[in-house]
């Protein structure tokens, strides 16, 4: 179904397009530079230069590995919500909150009207796209997740905060598309957390994507999909990028019951494991997906961002993934 949509935006992709979820491991010199910048021992300009260098590295890597749809690798981003909260007006960075064990993060607080001061990610997207002839995805965090992962001092309720954010994120989508992005990914990992709020999360996504000529992907992970499926298919996007490997491919049984009606980016690499999957394992996972999804609707990628892996692990995993897909393309794809 969405092949037509891809063609309308001017993209022809091979069967089983390969991509990644967004982040790549930060290179050592970037980690060091970011720490120095935080300690005010490095200027913004110096940090930018190193982040660009690392972005070049990851674009080259993706081309060399043979991925079809690329990402900029997010060398310049920290937390996926804090990155946007830092730049947008209306946020203040809150104190530390524990996420588990001895892990803490700064949770943003909405303290005023949220506003995009200007394009947030467009310069980075242009830079990355300028390095390759393959399509680079525009990468944004969705309004529901930014709302859910922030405190809200300003808006009367969660829905109001979510809609206000949706209006601003739409502006960023428009800027990306204006700059030439054909594929925009809007990550909503928090989407499945409160099924009773799914209705307004859907509405918010309408605000973000309606009428904009791009192919939209949304990434959702670690969720209780059983509570929001199949209703979540109403989300106005073309492609759902779902974590499948880490959850033991449980979702397949949900799709057997209620057919999956959109394109699916099927996570075939466990991003929390050091183990590099073999092409055979990846191929088996893809074949499982093909039992419930038409080959024309299937994309292949890792479960989630690869930033938690070592550089070599990320490379190794992606090579296996691309090898498995090539093998399938060559030997013929059957359901």
């Amino acid at each position, binding site marked *: 179904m969405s092949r037509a949509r891809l063609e309308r935006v001017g993209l022809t992709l091979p069967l089983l397009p390969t991509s990644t979820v967004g982040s790549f491991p930060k290179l050592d010199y970037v980690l060091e530079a970011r720490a120095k910048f935080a300690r005010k021992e490095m200027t913004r300009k110096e940090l930018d230069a190193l982040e660009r260098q690392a972005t070049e590295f990851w674009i080259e890597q993706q081309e060399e590995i043979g991925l079809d749809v690329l990402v900029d690798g997010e060398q310049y981003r920290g937390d996926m919500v804090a990155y946007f909260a830092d730049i947008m007006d209306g946020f203040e960075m809150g104190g*530390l*909150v524990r996420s*588990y064990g001895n892990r803490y993060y700064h949770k943003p607080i909405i303290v005023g009207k949220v506003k995009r001061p200007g394009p947030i990610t467009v310069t980075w997207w242009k830079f990355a796209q300028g390095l390759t002839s393959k399509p680079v995805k525009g990468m944004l965090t969705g309004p529901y997740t930014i709302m859910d992962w922030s*405190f809200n001092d300003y808006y009367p309720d969660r829905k109001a905060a979510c809609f206000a954010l949706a209006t601003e994120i739409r502006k960023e989508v428009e800027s990306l598309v204006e700059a030439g992005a054909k594929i925009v990914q809007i990550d909503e990992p928090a989407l499945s957390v409160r099924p009773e709020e799914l209705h307004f999360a859907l509405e918010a996504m309408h605000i973000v994507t309606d009428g904009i000529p791009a192919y939209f992907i949304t990434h959702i992970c670690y969720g209780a999909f059983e509570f929001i499926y199949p209703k979540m298919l109403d989300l106005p996007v073309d492609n759902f990028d779902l974590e499948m490997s880490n959850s033991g491919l449980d979702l397949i049984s949900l799709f057997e019951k209620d057919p999956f009606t959109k394109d699916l980016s099927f996570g075939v690499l466990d991003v929390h494991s050091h183990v590099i999957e073999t092409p055979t394992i990846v191929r088996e996972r893809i074949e499982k997906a093909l039992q419930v999804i038409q080959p024309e609707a299937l994309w292949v990628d890792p479960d989630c961002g690869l930033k938690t892996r070592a550089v070599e692990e990320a490379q190794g995993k992606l090579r296996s993934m691309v090898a498995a897909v090539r093998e399938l393309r060559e030997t013929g794809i059957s359901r």
Partner: protein
Amino acid sequence: MELCLANHSSYPRVGASREQQRLRRAYAQRERGEISPEAFNQVQDSLVAEVIEEQAHAGCELVTDGQIRWYDSISHVAGKLAHVEINGLLRYFDTNFYFRQPVITANVEWREPLVVEEFRYAKRTSVRSVKPVLTGPYTLAIASIRQTPVYGDFSTLVMDLSAVLAREVNALATAGAEVIQVEEPAILQHPQDLPLLQQALTALSEARGSARLALYTYFGDAAPVYEALQELPVQILGFDFTYAPKLPDKIATVGSQKSLGLGLIDGRNTRMETAKDVFPLLEKVLPHVPGEIVYLNPSCGLEYLPRDKAVAKLTLLKELKEAFLQERKG
């Protein structure tokens, strides 16, 4: 009627200052084997004392130890039982906090004290009354993976956990606890299991001695099951009002046979409530609550907030109470 300012359960263990981050550093040192168990315990002890003092200073009349020693509310309790292994991370309800999931491999059995030693320390340290907190048998069972035929039947696990927790309730009562909080947030997602919870709480109730049992639910709407909760063998019911817009009306209509813990202040958000938010609810509910004490507490543990906001919420609770009493007098 006395309005008692109470903390809920957990409390942020790090703050903005270097001194307030000493436990975080101690954990990292422990992982690298750079700190002795004794030195690590000392850091925990000092932090428990600090957060107890902080709660008291903010106006709390009933404090907790902040669950400073807990990895999370599930594995801290379950991990001390025999035949329980601790597994990977799972999201805690609809929060952005993750707990480690227990795996039950055979009959769960008591092996060591669960929280009574922690309570004893807190009690010694505190000038205010200390409320120990236990995660309840139903929520522990729901959060666990059953990897043994012994627990093919879910209710058998709930009842075995109940027996183990009853022993701890007894130990806490003997150690001088006046109020023992049992947390059962999971029951709000599974109201069909209320009869099972009733059965499971019976053993805890029989073990409580002269202590009062407080059953706290949160992260869900208690209004639809309010009547059934009133039937449970506990003396206090604690509610999270942030999820339950119709609960004040429900209490006003049905009344209450028990003391109540009113979680009117949102423990999950930094917005500071005003008199306009809170007074109408108090006015609606208070005439229908029997007994001498009503507990005013946050809606849930305060660990979901940064430390500065947690203190601010407790201080706010005190100010609201004073203003409310003043207004009533006037």
